[in-house]
């Protein structure tokens, strides 16, 4: 009988904090399935959050009878996230997904992508007021990149102990872009501004230009912001596979199977950072608030920059497209296009919005690289 009861002895190791983490895991799974919010990531993360918060979970490293028993999730973390392997593979997939033609056809759109990185740096400053060190503040600010892999890359570079919360915030807010951006845009623009029509007269883009684009971007980013080169380089390599025209199968695999597979493993692995003792604290709450601020101020930065440009240019720009510079590709472009149609059903902004949105992808990666250059580890 005593032996039988010992089977349930582990129950005594259960804490209320673990149960709270199960609930958080359950919410992430619910958001992924029911609300279809980034399900490829939120579902494995939610399940992983439950997995690592079981008492004496064998999924993570435990000390049993004085001996260290390595858990598979910690092994995966060291093999794929600590050394950035998963993130770089994911960047190849993202690069293969993105068509930069709208940006090449209208390069000046990239200025809005740059302006919309304001939220990253503003939140960095804000986070220091909440007591975060400069390195942790940078890790929190980069949530504003609206780009999960970049957020993980930077937070991991600084060995931030808030990695779990940063990832949850980054991916949750990315999925919430359709809810976060419209009220912010409406608050800082007039109806007249939102109805501005933009002619779309792009210059034609040749195949050679599309092939040379990722190579040139890599060289320039490497020369100016060398710390960003791993991120930019893998992103551009993925794009080169897409545009070269002779690696169709590799391109399809990179943007579909590989990206999905890496995201799935990534989701489970990052959950190893969602242990109750590290996750349930005041800082996590701060990070969630600051992450939201980062998204809001990215949007504000992009929109206000577009309004500023309108003071000096003859051809007026619909300031809403500035908000697409937030990255979050392609969701942000879709949101702005829908907002434009809502204001004026005949005003289609999809190409301009996509151009800004893909530029935001590049700019957010460069912003991440700049942070690494400006703040020592």
């Amino acid at each position: 009988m005593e032996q039988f009861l010992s089977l349930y002895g582990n129950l005594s190791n259960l804490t209320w904090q673990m149960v709270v983490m199960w609930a958080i895991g359950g919410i992430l799974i619910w958001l992924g399935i029911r609300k279809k919010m980034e399900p490829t990531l939120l579902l494995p993360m939610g399940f992983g959050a439950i997995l690592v918060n079981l008492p004496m979970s064998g999924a993570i490293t435990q000390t049993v009878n004085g001996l260290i028993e390595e858990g598979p999730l910690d092994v995966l973390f060291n093999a794929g996230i600590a050394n950035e392997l998963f993130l770089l593979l994911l960047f190849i997939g993202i690069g293969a997904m993105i068509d930069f033609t709208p940006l090449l056809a209208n390069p000046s759109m990239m200025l809005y992508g740059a302006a919309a990185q304001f939220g990253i740096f503003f939140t960095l400053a804000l986070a220091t007021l909440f007591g975060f060190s400069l390195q942790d503040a940078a890790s929190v600010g980069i949530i504003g990149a609206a780009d999960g892999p970049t957020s993980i890359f930077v937070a991991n570079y600084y060995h931030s102990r808030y990695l779990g919360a940063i990832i949850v915030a980054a991916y949750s807010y990315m999925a919430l872009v359709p809810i976060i951006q419209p009220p912010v845009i409406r608050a800082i623009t007039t109806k007249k501004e939102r109805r501005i029509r933009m002619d779309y007269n792009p210059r034609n883009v040749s195949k050679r230009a599309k092939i040379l684009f990722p190579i040139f971007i890599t060289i320039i980013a490497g020369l100016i912001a060398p710390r960003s080169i791993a991120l930019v380089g893998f992103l551009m390599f993925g794009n080169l596979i897409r545009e070269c025209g002779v690696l169709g199968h590799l391109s399809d695999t990179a943007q579909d199977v590989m990206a999905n597979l890496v995201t799935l493993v990534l989701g489970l692995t990052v959950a190893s950072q969602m242990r109750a003792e590290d996750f349930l604290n005041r800082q996590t709450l701060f990070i969630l608030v600051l992450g939201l601020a980062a998204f809001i101020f990215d949007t504000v930065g992009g929109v206000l920059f577009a309004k500023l440009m309108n003071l000096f240019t003859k051809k007026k720009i619909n300031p809403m497209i500035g908000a697409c510079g937030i990255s979050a590709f392609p969701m942000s472009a879709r949101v702005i296009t829908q907002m434009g149609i809502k204001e004026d059903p005949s005003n289609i902004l999809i190409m301009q919005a996509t151009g800004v949105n893909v530029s935001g992808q590049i700019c957010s990666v460069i912003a991440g690289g700049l942070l690494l250059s400006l703040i020592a580890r």
Partner: protein
Amino acid sequence: MENFAAALRVMGMGMLGIFSVTIVLIVVMSLLTKIFPPENNEEM
């Protein structure tokens, strides 16, 4: 407050950095599309 002052410096440098890189990239993209225009038979 020391961290905040340092963060403000990073903010200034960061935004300056991102715009300067962006301007270089815009010039390169414009040159690329001008130097390598689509050929007549090329699908765009």
